[in-house]
């Protein structure tokens, strides 16, 4: 081998591209670099999970990521005493409700915007885009006022409804783009078949938009589940209505922070999200790719 390599270099000028690293070595190197970046990314979560199995004393004893004496106390304490169980179901209620409302509303609006000739469509869509540029911090008080004036200022229904508004414009556009690029013959075939517009939407168009539906469900779930500012404002005077993210925050006591309980509560918070993502990631990525392609 060495001989052959040597003799070749002596006769022909070495080719630069081959000289440095073989493609295989290059792949390995890239993998190592990416793995390192990934580790940095994942570290906070791993630390949090690890800390949730440690006592408050051990957390700051710098004992490494593996707990010396793993304990489940943090979880029971968080679930029972800190009311995380209650908050969990509040969050579930808000999330599920807002996902259902958002998906249906966005699909319907997207269908109309994407496929029907309606007067003033451009202006309407422009207006909707404009709302994307207003930070939530500016709208939170008027939204709260609005909820109060319809009698939902102190209820989970209010949180649910307001949570729907976060990204519905984007979801609507996703649907509009997707429906807009579907061939009109599909609907016409259905019309020739004697199927009415509602049934056509339900049995033909909606099933075909599955990638978008999954994308919207995942994104809205993430948003609703992790939302902080809105539930904080609405539930300020009403601890029973807190959602997980607000609940976790309340572990910060006046003089003492229960880090163990807080990390356990955080773990409880993110586990459903991780499960959901693992479960739906294939569809989710398909949907995003489809939306970009479309």
């Amino acid at each position, binding site marked *: 081998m060495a001989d052959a390599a040597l003799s070749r270099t002596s006769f022909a000028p070495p080719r630069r591209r081959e000289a440095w690293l073989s493609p295989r070595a290059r792949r390995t190197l890239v993998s190592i670099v990416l793995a390192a970046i990934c580790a940095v990314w994942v570290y906070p979560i791993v630390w949090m999970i690890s800390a949730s199995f440690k006592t408050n004393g051990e957390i700051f004893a710098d004992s490494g990521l593996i707990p010396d004496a793993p304990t489940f106390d943090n979880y029971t304490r968080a679930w029972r005493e800190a009311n995380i169980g209650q908050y969990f179901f509040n969050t579930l209620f808000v999330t599920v409700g807002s996902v259902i409302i958002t998906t249906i509303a966005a699909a319907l609006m997207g269908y109309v915007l994407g496929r029907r000739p309606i007067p003033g469509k451009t202006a309407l869509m422009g207006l909707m885009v404009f709302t994307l540029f207003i930070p939530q911090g500016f709208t939170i008080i008027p939204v709260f006022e609005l909820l109060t004036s319809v009698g939902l200022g102190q209820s989970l229904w209010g949180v649910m409804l307001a949570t729907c508004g976060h990204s519905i414009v984007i979801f609507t556009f996703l649907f509009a783009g997707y429906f807009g690029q579907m*061939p009109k*013959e599909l609907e016409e075939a259905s*019309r020739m078949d004697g199927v009415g517009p509602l049934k056509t939407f339900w049995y033909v168009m909606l099933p075909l938009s599955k990638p978008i539906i999954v994308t919207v469900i995942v994104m809205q779930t993430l948003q609703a589940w992790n939302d902080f500012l809105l539930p904080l404002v609405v539930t300020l005077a009403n601890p029973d209505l807190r959602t997980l993210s607000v609940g976790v925050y309340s572990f910060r006591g006046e003089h003492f922070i229960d880090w163990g309980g807080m990390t356990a509560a955080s773990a409880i918070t993110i586990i459903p999200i991780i499960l959901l993502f693992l479960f739906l990631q294939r569809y989710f990525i398909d949907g995003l790719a489809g939306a970009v392609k479309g």
Partner: protein
Amino acid sequence: MSGVILNNVKKRYGAVEVIKGVDIEIGEGEFCVFVGPSGCGKSTLLRMIAGLEEISSGDVQIGGRRVNDLDPKDRGAAMVFQTYALYPHMDVARNMGFGLSMNGWPRDEVDRRVNEAARILQLEPYLDRKPRQLSGGQRQRVAIGRAIVRDPEVFLFDEPLSNLDAELRVATRLEIAKLHGTLENSTMIYVTHDQVEAMTLADKIVVLRDGRVEQVGAPMDLYETPDNLFVAGFIGSPKMNFMALDNGRLPDGTAPAVPGAAGAATLGVRSDALRPVESGGDVAGEITVVEQLGDAVFAHFRTGWGQEMVARFEPGTRLRAGESVRFALAGRTHLFDAEGRALRAAAERLTA
């Protein structure tokens, strides 16, 4: 009674008139083909019959009823789309039965009809496949099956073969011809830009140009006695040769042996009506391209006045580019006046 009658039908998109007053009568059980160049309004006309486009003015009757204001589903017509328009997420059986199921037909009746259509179209092995698992020809058959299960009075086809490759196109063309034989009482209206499809399938051809009917007739009528220059040039392959006439003389000053040529502005002659001769003859030229088709040889040649024309030779004839050829007019010739209208007197056979 499932004939279709169009009565001075017009279609306007805003200020643009794309169908400019069309009268067509299609008898029950007839296979009628709308043919014309791309953009002439064939699809628009078909979609107006289907009920997918509003009718700006005029009447459309199906089976003796005026259907202008009826919903597509109430017109008794089924349509096969160029792109098939199958529902991608439904299997073949569901694709065909969807319309019936949605309209509350009992399940076993839907199944019966779907199976019957699948049998006719030889789709039985594929009933639980999704459209994407089918070949182009199979998809096309599913699209036809979806029309068949509805047992319509009128079938509407919009260029159903144009997405198939050449071989499959011929095969499916035959299938459609057979289908028309099977479903005797069904009227079929078929849109295509391909005059070969029109000639092979039609009982009656409607030649359209620019939103107007140029001529209606049986395929051989159109071939042998075209009403005008456009139809003469559109029907038949290769295209008819046209020569300008001036007081009965060709551009090179010779007078062709065609009675009545003196009053015509254009002389038309198909490639098979040019007989090669050693000397004399009516047209002379120099061969530019030779096309060997196996069952015929087409020689393209340039006349003395620089016009490209084409003549048919018997198979096996040896010809070379650059060779000089002379032809006598030996068959049906066509004469047209300055407006492009056929002068019928010239349609008699020459025996030269």
